[in-house]
């Protein structure tokens, strides 16, 4: 899938500013702070929001053909909480009918229920499920009908560590058979799940590449300084990413474009530090 020169304005606010992402395949992560434009981009790809200009193309199919696009996408929004009174099975059957899925809707539902590991809750009412289970139900409704593109908006936020891990494994598994566009603001999710990632900031694309390429960008701009307590108040022209007290000496890591002081030593950036570098220094 290729996203080319996408623009979207809300009144005077430019939510997307000439966003271009080429060659989206496998699991592609979208990362950025709140308000970076991730959700707007997701909604446009999910056909529920109209773009102002630009284009999206997938295997020759353009997003102007909304009807055809809807047949090949699955979408899990940030908040998914429908069908409280229905059982998991019934809720998915309802979605299957609305998605005009070919074949027997019940069989299709059974398949996705197994895939998201909700078989033992198939007859439970949606209102009684935990947050993680509802999110898995959300994924189930999105993958019903075996879409070619799966769009998931911050699916791991608010989940406990175990559910998060389970969810990431599921996304990775799905990434083998479909294109997954996955937004998050949790940096760990990228290393664990994504093949490639796009970093967004204030509606613009800062970088598209692999996690290693992200780190490469920040390489040479991460410094470590050991400071005594008296010197911790000193101001530096950079962003402190970590500060640990080791026997009264503060080991401080800092993102900075130039060497902040004589004692500073260049170190290897983590992905999170690279992200900070890309957002604020690039």
């Amino acid at each position, binding site marked *: 899938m290729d996203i080319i020169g996408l623009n979207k304005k809300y009144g005077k606010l430019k939510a997307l500013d000439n966003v271009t992402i080429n060659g989206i395949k496998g699991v592609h992560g979208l990362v950025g702070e709140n308000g970076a434009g991730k959700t707007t981009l997701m909604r446009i790809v999910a056909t529920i*929001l109209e773009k102002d200009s630009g284009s999206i193309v997938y295997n020759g199919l353009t997003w102007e053909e909304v*009807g055809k696009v809807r047949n090949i996408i699955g979408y899990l929004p940030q908040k998914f909480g429908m069908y409280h009174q229905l059982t998991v099975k019934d809720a998915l059957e309802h979605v299957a009918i609305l998605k005009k899925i070919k074949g027997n809707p019940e069989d299709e539902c059974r398949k996705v229920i197994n895939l998201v590991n909700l078989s033992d809750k198939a007859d439970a009412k949606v209102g009684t499920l935990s947050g993680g289970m509802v999110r898995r139900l959300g994924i189930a409704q999105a993958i019903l009908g075996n879409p070619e593109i799966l769009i998931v908006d911050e699916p791991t936020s608010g989940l406990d560590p175990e559910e998060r891990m389970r969810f990431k494994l599921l996304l990775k598994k799905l990434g083998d058979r479909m294109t997954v566009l996955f937004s998050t603001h949790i940096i760990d999710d990228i290393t664990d799940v994504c093949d490639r990632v796009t970093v967004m900031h204030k509606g613009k694309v800062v970088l598209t590449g692999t996690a290693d390429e992200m780190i490469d960008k920040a390489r040479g701009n991460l410094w470590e300084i050991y400071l005594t307590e008296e010197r911790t108040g000193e101001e530096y022209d950079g962003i402190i990413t970590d500060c640990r007290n080791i026997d009264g000496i503060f080991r401080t890591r800092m993102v900075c474009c130039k060497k902040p002081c004589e004692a500073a030593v260049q170190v290897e950036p983590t992905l999170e530090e690279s992200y900070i570098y890309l957002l604020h220094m690039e």
Partner: protein
Amino acid sequence: MKRFIRLIILDFKGMSVTSFVPVVFIALLTLYGSVMFDPWQPFLVLNMYQQLIPPLASWWVIMLFYSFVEDEGAEAFFSYGFSRKVLGTGRAATVMGAFSVLTLITCTALLFVNKYPMADVMKFYLVLLTQSWYYGGIGFLVLMMIRNMLWTFAIVMMVLYINIWGGLTEISRYLVITVEIGKSLELKDIWIKLVSTLVFSIVFFYLAQKRFNKLTFRAKK
């Protein structure tokens, strides 16, 4: 067709106990009007039915469509490939059909329990039907326009209030058929109102459906 029927069944299952509100209300009202109401005041029974039953038609319509405009996660609905025309028209027609059956039960009670003349009951059924479609149409249209369930109910109630007590307003002059005490319903007296109510109902449903076809996701502020 089989899938559509299954969809409607699931729709009603999803509404849970709230789906029974019109049924219970009409059953209680019919029981009151046919068994307990003073048999010396037949036209008051008709007035009561005519004013209280039709607004209930908007209940199912609103409850069925509100998930598209208010539910958390309704965003996902808009990405599905279903035909809005089929879904909107089909759902509206089904619930209005079901409501027509409910009102028929009330009219049957009028015929057999209250012992009203068949011709009067038939004409009264026409009144109930057209007024029900009128309220159903208002509910559907207002919900699609303001995208808020509670406000939609409030507006339906406001229309009901105007119809009952605003006897001199244009709305009631052209649309409300008030059964006069001591007078039997004459078709020649009411047909203009029946037709105008029907025309308004069709316009309301048409506009609501048009809006539903173009309904897009709107983020809550």
